Each structure stands twice: as C-alpha cells, then as structure tokens.
C-alpha cells in the first residue's frame, strides 16, 4: 500500500508532456513512501504508448486497451479498477483539462481526498502538498490527514523524465460497465485560424484586463504600430470580444516564443504564462508590484499603463 499510481495523458495519438513529468513526481513520491511506481495508459495505441513511457523509475506499466480517445467515464472506471487491484497509497493525475474531467470523479468514487493543481509534494509519514491561491499571489501548504489520497499535478512544475527504463508491461484485464458510459466524443475542432499568426511575430505587445475598456484597445494598437509589433492578448480580452480568438496567448490559445513579449496590464496567471514563458525577453507593465508576471519578467515597469504607454509611444515616434 506504499505504491504510487500515475495515469498518463495522451491526445490524438500523442503523449502529452505532463505524462513525463508525472513519472518524475511519482518516482519522487514513491521513493519517499518506499513503494513501487505504477503507470497506467488508458485507451489509444496502448502498446506504443507503453513502450514510449517505459522510463527510468517506473516499476510497472498497466495498459487498458479500450477505446481510442479520452473518455472520462472510461478513465474514471479504469483508474478505480486499477486502484482496486494495485492498492496504491497515492494516485497522481494531470491537472489538465482532461485530468480535471475525471480525477474529481475518481476521488469521489474511492472516497479519497483530492488535492488539485499541486506545484510541490513532500512525504514524511504524511503527504504535504504545495499549491497556489488567489491567482498565484500566495502559496499554501496543504497537509493531508489521510493515509491515501489523490493529487493532480500542474504541468511544467516537475522536470520531465526521458531516460529509458525497464518496467514490466502488462495488459490490465478491464471490462467497463458500458451502461455507465453516458458521454461520447464525436470529434475535435481546431479554433483560432484567421488573419494573423501571433506565433510568427518577433515582437508582441500583449494586452490584458488592465486595459479596462474596449475603447482603450486603440492605445495598445498604437503602441504595437510604433514598435513594429503584433498585438496579442490575455484571455479576458478575447472573452469580452475585444479581440478575436487568434490573438489569445496561453494554455487554451497560442504558445508564443517571440524575441520580445511586452505584457501590458496582464497579471501572469498560470494559464497565460504557459503560452509565453518561452519568450526571449519579457517586459511587464503593471500597477501591482506583486503581480506574478514580474516573476518571469526581464524588465519591469511598476506603473499605470495609461501613463506609461503614451510616453512609450512618444519614444518611438
């Protein structure tokens, strides 16, 4: 019962990065509990996935050959069945959109506590999880007062494991209760085509909710023009319909890696940062000195964008 079970994630034939990070997080935890690390691959080309996920530190791989793409009913049932069989102390899943579509159901069904969006974990007789709150403004530690628990881990917080391993790979004997599969994935759609590809730009001026009003968008458009830059944005700007979807940077928008990224009135939420942290140089203009965007910025201006941006436009005209 000191084992750790991790559930890999894949989509449309590709293993998602967080799976490799789960291996690292799971191995660290299993070292602390003194248990084995089990990895589950559910649906799709499980044999191929199992071969690729046969990584250093994994002791056993369980394949569940049922269905092609992610279906939360299948994942929840398969994970619960594996828990029954393996009897792990901890189950780790990704804090992805799909992870959040089945991990809470697994926790509920197994009557186990769930700590989601973990950014750190330690085990010293009991599990302690580090996670953020209030839009990344504070960090908290959560102590789990239970022998067993489920955790979802944030992507990009643990290093990926790449080195090959020599786990035992076995097909897990699983027949789902099909009468309890009441959702069907009928397809996928790619969104956000259109006139510009912000991923191609060398310089991005990116605007966030600090701009306050649709009519103020003009101001950052002017800045982008003056700098010869392309205009992008955080999510609320697109949600409000002030800019089209193809301008959105982040987890559910585009991943961009320009030479220079200028964040104007953007707080730096994790889902935004996921889309721009690879930029060569990051500039942040924000009134809040504690805004998380400054943690990843190379240049910071603590100030009011309505005062700084006009001055900056002047500098370049």
């Amino acid at each position: 019962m000191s084992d750790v079970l991790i559930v890999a994630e894949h989509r449309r034939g590709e293993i998602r990065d967080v799976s490799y990070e789960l291996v690292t997080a799971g191995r660290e935890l299993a070292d602390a509990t003194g248990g084995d690390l089990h990895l589950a691959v559910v649906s799709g080309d499980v044999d191929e996935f199992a071969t690729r996920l046969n990584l250093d530190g994994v002791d056993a791989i369980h394949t569940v050959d049922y269905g092609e793409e992610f279906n939360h009913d299948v994942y929840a049932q398969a994970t619960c069945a594996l828990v029954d069989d393996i009897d792990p102390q901890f189950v780790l899943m990704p804090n992805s959109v799909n992870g959040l579509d089945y991990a809470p159901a697994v926790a509920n069904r197994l009557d186990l506590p769930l700590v989601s969006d973990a950014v750190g974990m330690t085990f010293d007789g009991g599990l302690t999880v580090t996670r953020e709150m209030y839009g990344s403004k504070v960090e908290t530690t959560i102590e789990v007062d239970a022998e067993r628990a489920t955790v979802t881990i944030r992507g990009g917080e643990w290093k990926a494991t790449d080195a090959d391993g020599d786990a035992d790979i076995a097909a897990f004997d699983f027949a789902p209760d099909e009468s309890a599969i009441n959702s069907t994935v009928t397809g996928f759609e790619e969104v956000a085509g259109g006139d510009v590809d912000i991923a191609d730009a060398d310089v991005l001026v990116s605007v966030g909710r600090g701009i306050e009003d649709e009519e103020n968008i003009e101001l950052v458009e002017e800045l982008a023009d003056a700098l010869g830059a392309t205009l992008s944005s955080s999510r609320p700007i697109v949600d409000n319909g002030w800019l089209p979807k193809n301008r959105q940077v982040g987890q559910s928008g585009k991943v961009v890696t320009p030479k220079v990224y200028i964040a104007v009135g953007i707080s730096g939420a994790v889902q935004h940062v996921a889309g721009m942290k690879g930029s060569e140089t990051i500039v942040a203009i924000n009134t809040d000195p504690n805004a998380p965007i400054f943690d990843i910025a190379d240049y910071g201006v603590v100030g009011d964008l309505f005062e700084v941006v006009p001055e900056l436009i002047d500098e370049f005209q």
Partner: protein
Amino acid sequence: MKVLVTVKEVAEVEDDFEIADLDVDPRYLEYDLNEWDEYAVESAVQLAEAADEEVEVVSVTIGPERSEETIRMALAKGVDRAVRVWDDDIEAAEFLDVASKVRLLEAVVAEEDPDIVLSGVQAHDTGFGATGVALADAIGFEWGAVVNALDIEGVLNDGVARVHRELEGGIEELTEIDLPAVLTIQTGINEPRYASLRGIRQAQSKEIAPKTLSDLGLDFSAVESELFLTDMYEPETESDATYFEGDAGEQAAALASALREKGVGAE
C-alpha cells in the same frame, strides 16, 4: 425543468496585502461573484429564456451572509431564487475541501431535484477546479468539464448536452453528454448580461433561502475535511527583472532604450 447553478462569492486580493495567520488579512480582500460563475449564470438564464415550458433557475451558494450581495447580482440577472448554505459549524470548519462542498451541494440537489447543474470551471480564489465533476459523480449525473459551447436546443428537446470542451492548445473536443448532467462552464462561452434596473429591483424581492447543516439533514461531520491548510505565504520571488524607476516618462525612456537594444523599433 429546473436548472441549478452554483454561485460562489470569491475573495480578491488587493495589490498590497498582508497575511494574518492562515489567510490574507481580510482588510485586503474584496468580494465579488466568481468570474466563471457569471458565465454559468448566463447559460442558465439563456436556457430558461429559450424554453417553451417553464424553466426554473435556482442558484446555490455556500457562503456567509455577506455573500447575499453577490447572490443578488445573480438574481438581478435572471436567476429565480437562491439557496444559501451556511451555519456556525460551516463557519468553524478549518478548510472546506472539495469533498466537504460536495456533501453540502449533494444535499441541496436532493432537495431541489434539478435536471441540469451548471457550475464554473473553477473559483478564482481557491482554484481547485474540481467541485462540479466531483458533485456529478456523487449525485449520479453525467458531466463535462471546461465547456465553452453548449447547444441549448439539445438540452431542451433531446435530453442531450452537445458541448465543446476547451482543451489545451486551441483544440476543442466535441462531446455529447446525456442528461441529467453537471457542466462546468468556461469563460467566453457567452456574453454575460448586465443587470437591468428592473432586474435589480426585482432581485430585492426574490427569495434567498438560508439552509443550515441540520436543515439539510447533515451534521458537522459533513464539513470535516481530511485536508488542512497549514501555511500561507508570499512565494519567494524568482524575479531577476530589471525595474525602471522614476515617473512614467523616465520609466518609458529607460524601457525604450532597453527595447532598442533588443532591436525593437528598428526599421
């Protein structure tokens, strides 16, 4: 048909703040309707407006009396009536984890018997992002997380929620979910309306029914969590940013020369 929509009052932290014990000092907190729930409320009201039959929209909130201000906002936008769960035991609970919230909401669902439950993807303050799906499993509903498009006709006429789930990287999953179901609603799915003056007036006379644990047939054990928040701190900044000081003009000038060094603005 009845729609239950979960509404949370979330705390937002001011720019400068202090931590007192295990939470941000309340002096630095402002309260507002959770951003994601605004979109869930709008979806619920749109469902009711599109239906030929009578559709009742009921909101449920776990929160102290203060949260009635937030609940009134939802009532002003078209929610018919509200349930607010709170009492001294809940107030005294150290940490309302997902399982605790689910036990409370499950009891409300048992009383209200909705056909569909809409919640936000996450609450902005705690950010667990898990209550909706855990609730669905507890009450035996189907579910869908991170829904950013919903075919209302399907819900009203076919007993199916045809949704888009917004995955990472600009990909949406098209999914058909049998009702009854819980959908967790993503921002951008619709355009939340502003409350009209008439709506605000009407909201004053709409019911906000307070419920205690015992009203719901529960006792304090329902809010006994296995998770304990034992520390809260400002993360050590990993920032090695160069900050430009001075007034806006000086800051802009310094930033401009840094940008020029990176080749920005060169024709």
